[in-house]
């Protein structure tokens, strides 16, 4: 029973970060209707920013949230404005060229990182990386717990933003019906740019929070892009609430898989869930709630 609870706790904690990744992806998917295949690579960029700050300037990883998030916000806006939005005007047989474009962006980001930092694995050691506290015999990794709290705080802030501010309402309107929103006076191309920025900033937060407990190399983006995709399928396409539960569920499933099946299959658990959801619950968790 202890093993089970311990696995559950570890899963929920990592699931918080997964949710943050998934929400960014869902937000972009909801507003633009495309899947951002460079999502994990954007996280990788944020992780390298944090790595540089802590390695050369000895800044605390949590402090570098203040640098990584705005930088990725700007990078995301740049990508959307100059690479993705112009594609709407390009006449092409394949409708998926925006998705292909994000693949290209992801490859370029990963290769630039490889040029600068080489393919070596990097880690950032912090005093709290390996320390833990205990509640009733269950150990909570300190860095993971802090990351989880941050993830919850960011999620709440995002929902406040989406529900209570004008800009947030514009984003939700564009996600619901782009043409109607445009007719109501929403500048939808500006909204897509801002949304991509916010999505990138959220995934940057996830990357920075992962740094104390994870390692870093240029190809780390790919697996996380796939995770984000599994989360959004699990939560229901374009649903931010679904992404929260999807992320936590994926975290739990992965850590259960690692404990009870074997470490080699940890990565596979997500994909198995993905196929099962597609076969038995197309539409994801969103379908269950009817919201």
């Amino acid at each position, binding site marked *: 029973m202890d093993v089970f609870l311990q696995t559950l706790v570890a899963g929920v904690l990592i699931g918080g970060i997964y949710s943050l990744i998934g929400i960014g992806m869902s937000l972009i998917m909801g507003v633009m209707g495309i899947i951002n295949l460079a999502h994990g690579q954007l996280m990788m960029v944020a992780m390298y920013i944090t790595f540089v700050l802590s390695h050369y300037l000895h800044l605390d990883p949590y402090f570098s949230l203040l640098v990584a998030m705005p930088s990725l916000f700007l990078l995301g806006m740049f990508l959307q404005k100059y690479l993705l939005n*112009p594609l709407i005007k390009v006449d*092409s047989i394949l409708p998926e060229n925006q*998705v292909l474009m994000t693949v290209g*962006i992801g490859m*370029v980001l990963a290769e630039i990182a490889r040029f600068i930092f080489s393919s070596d694995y990097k880690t950032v050691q912090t005093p709290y990386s390996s320390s833990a506290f205990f509640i009733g015999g269950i150990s909570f990794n300190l860095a993971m717990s802090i990351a989880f709290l941050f993830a919850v705080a960011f999620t709440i802030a995002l929902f406040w933003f989406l529900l209570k501010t004008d800009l947030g309402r514009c984003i939700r309107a564009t996600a619901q019906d782009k043409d109607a929103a445009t007719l109501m006076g929403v500048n939808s191309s500006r909204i897509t740019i801002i949304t991509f920025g916010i999505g990138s900033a959220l995934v940057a937060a996830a990357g920075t929070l992962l740094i104390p407990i994870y390692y870093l190399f240029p190809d780390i983006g790919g697996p996380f892009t*796939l995770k984000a995709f599994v989360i959004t399928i699990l939560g229901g396409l374009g649903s931010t609430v679904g992404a929260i539960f999807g992320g936590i569920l994926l975290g739990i499933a992965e850590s259960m898989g690692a404990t009870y099946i074997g470490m080699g299959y940890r990565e*596979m658990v997500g*994909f198995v869930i*993905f196929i099962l959801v597609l076969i038995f619950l197309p539409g994801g968790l969103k379908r269950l709630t009817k919201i």
Partner: protein
Amino acid sequence: MKKQKLYWVLLGIFFLTFPFLVKSDYYQHLMIITLMWVVIGSSWNLLAGYTGQVSFGHAIFFGVGAYTAGIFVTKLEMSAWWGMMFGGITAMLIALFVGWVCFRLRGPYFALATLAGGEIFRLIAVNWEGLTDGMVGILIIQDFRSKVPYYYIALALAAVCIWVIHVIMKRKWGYYFVSIREDQDAAASMGINTTLYKNISLLVSAFFTGMAGAFYMNYMGFIDPDVVFSLHFISIMAILVGIVGGVATIWGPAVGAFIMVGLQETFRSSFFGLAPKWVSQGHALVFGLLVIFVILFLANGVVGDWKKIKRNVFRMRESH
């Protein structure tokens, strides 16, 4: 018209006599790899370009074909050439399952589902050591020392693949495929069983890709999961071959294969040893930049946008 026919005949003679014209093993090898990519690119094009179902997971079929051939040697102790026959068929069986799951999704979601499928098969190949020998990979002894027999096999495979796709696209199936790409709902309301025809397109595509995989096993003699199920160097490469050459054109992927393999080799060998060594590390970066460039400026590929290229680059027609 007559002049055009002459060009085709000359081209045919060139390909048939290539191994006698060029004796260098290195260039023969490049040609064989290019012809293999012609097969993969053309079959990707049938599914993505003509039927509109953009697959990010053609490595599934390539890898399954390659592993079929390899397992014939390691587990059944038969010739890997049996794998050429069964590689395509196994890939088709796998494609049935992939289609059953992935065709529940449309457009970009289908693309992503196939991408995840590729990763699943890679992980299976890594972890199912009893069948695939995991990360150790499969090593076999090639049957021929000379590259000439392989060249003709690859040439025949490429020719048959292009011919079959050409025939399919002239028939009723071809029109069904294009109508699904243009508007799936309209196609369905016209009475076309869209799921059935998407699956047919996928099966043909998987068959040839599986054959190419089995050929790769026979020719290279070594495979491991990271080579044949690679996302970047098989699945994405297949897409690049298709879009650089031109989607939904018969000869586009063939042209694309020559461009892409040529480019890849140029960078991998640092411009054939002329440029400094670090250039060879940049070939993946060039791939990425090429994707961005092609999508922004050459959305229909070299063959599809040939008129545009002629107009803008060579300033033909207008100067007169």
